């Protein structure tokens, strides 16, 4: 009996210690095993994991690049996804493109699929500055480098590149045009983007950094239309009824700008309206005089830059650039709208 207790106690102690040690080593063990055939680049297996942010990630082992973006129903994200896909294929990768629809849970699932597919790299326009950090870390632990595009996250040393559209600068630049078009005075309304998207807040605060400095500019309503065209149409219609003397509209993106312009047309009005993105639809409205301007986010440039850097990183172990890189937006008005097509500005 005594002997049995002793054995039991020993067993228990041993199993506890074993559990401790196993918990630590299993991840690096898996990572080692995952380096198998089919790999075109990445010959040498990663020596030791967890050596901090300087460690060079070799990719999961396959030749697949994941392109993860918000919903491609927005032409801006479609341009981004299409450009990244085309460039990656051109460079010899297999591409899996998917949308997280701005849902962090869905995004995590997509990252898990990328890890399961032993992806070489992930290109991602993310679904939340804080929510994304864990997903990128997880990919990193599996040896997969992530290249973030368009939106940034609130952590450094996790992704390899963050190629960020300078929303703040772009929104500010077009807000200056808005104030000019309004003659520095009058009542206006603002339509905000989806609250969970960092850029909705960034763009709005940039608008207001400019506009709020003008004491005769008065905001009479501010509502979200969740980046959506029809929602923007309905909200604009309602706001016009409540405030028939509105003299201008600021929109967080171009799809909402489209909805607003349609609502204004239906009401027989033409007012200063600004958006952000630089879509061809917005360009057409600027040309026809229905909209004042937009800020072009250079989605194609950003997506292509990310893929080129991913390729370089996988082959040479470095992108040769800082992690955080800002890509400027370009203020588009009737003066230069002719140079804009398919999210590309040609000087």
């Amino acid at each position, binding site marked *: 009996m005594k002997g049995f207790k*002793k054995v039991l106690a*020993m067993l228990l102690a041993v199993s506890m210690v074993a559990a401790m040690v196993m918990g630590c080593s299993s991840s690096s063990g898996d990572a080692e095993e995952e380096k198998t055939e089919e790999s075109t680049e990445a010959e040498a297996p990663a020596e030791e994991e967890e050596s901090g942010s300087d460690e060079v990630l070799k990719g999961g082992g396959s030749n697949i690049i994941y392109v993860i973006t918000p919903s491609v129903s927005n032409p801006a994200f479609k341009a981004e996804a299409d450009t990244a896909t085309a460039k990656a294929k051109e460079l010899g990768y297999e591409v899996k493109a998917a949308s997280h629809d701005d849902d962090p849970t869905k995004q995590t699932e997509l990252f898990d699929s990328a890890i399961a597919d032993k992806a070489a790299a992930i290109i991602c326009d993310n679904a939340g500055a804080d929510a994304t950090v864990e997903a990128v870390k997880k990919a990193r632990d599996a040896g997969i480098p992530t290249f973030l595009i368009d939106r940034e996250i609130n952590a450094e040393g996790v992704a390899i590149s963050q190629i960020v559209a300078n929303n703040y*600068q772009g929104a500010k630049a077009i807000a200056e045009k808005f104030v000019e078009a309004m003659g*520095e005075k009058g009542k206006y309304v603002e339509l905000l983007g989806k609250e969970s998207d960092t850029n909705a807040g960034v763009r709005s605060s940039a608008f207001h*950094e400019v506009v709020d*400095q003008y004491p005769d500019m008065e905001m009479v309503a501010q509502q979200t239309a969740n980046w959506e065209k029809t929602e923007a149409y309905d909200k604009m219609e309602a706001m016009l009824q409540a405030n028939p003397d509105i003299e201008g509209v600021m929109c967080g993106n171009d799809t909402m700008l489209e909805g607003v312009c349609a609502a204004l047309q239906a009401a027989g009005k033409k007012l200063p309206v600004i958006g952000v993105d630089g879509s061809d639809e917005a360009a057409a409205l600027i040309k026809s005089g229905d909209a004042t301007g937009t800020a072009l986010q250079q989605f194609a440039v950003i997506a292509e830059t990310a893929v080129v850097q991913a390729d370089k990183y996988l082959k040479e172990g470095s992108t040769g650039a800082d992690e*955080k890189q800002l890509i*400027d937006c370009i203020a588009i008005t009737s003066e230069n709208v002719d140079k804009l097509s398919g999210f590309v500005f040609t000087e």
Partner: protein
Amino acid sequence: MKKRAIALGLTLALSASTLFTGCGIVKVVKIGEEGKYTGNVEFNAGDDVAAIWEDSALPEMNETAVDLTEFLTQSNGDLTALAKDYGKYSMGDSGELSYVVKGTGTVEEVNTESQAGFMTVKLDGYTGSEAVKIQIGPVYKGSSIRDCLSFIKFGDYKNQEEWAAVSQSINKVVAEDVVAPVKPESLQGKTVSFVGAFTVSSGSTDVLITPVVLEAK
């Protein structure tokens, strides 16, 4: 005796497995001192700019400023022509192009009608067509000064809002310490000397300068 040893071993193993969960060694961090470990020190753009203004920003700009009369003469109508020699792009070799310039001239017009007020200056010894304007606020456009400084960059800040806040703070210093003391509304017809930065705007040859030094003669 043996029993005790076993009990001890068991306790040790149990406590060890609890302590070391997550594999890291547990460390107690006092409230408010997280920044020491995470590097996320609370950001304050105002303090940041106060710290760099006198010691770094002004000396650098005074030193690198190119004479605007010579600059415009050499540029010959194309403000991007001298980018390689004196300019700084916001994205390495593309993006917004800014220059640090200095000069002396006569104030032809003081515009305070717009909130984004400015003075139009006729540069000494220059007859070209570009309009040279110095911003006098209260609204300051752009971020020319921030974008010219060599020692700060976007990557040093948490996100683009903090990066933007740096420029706001700089423009605030300009309004309070550079522009207000010279009483711009009284400068019509006077001679002024300046050091400042401007960003080339597409589709316009206006030189809109945000001053860091502004003196009436």
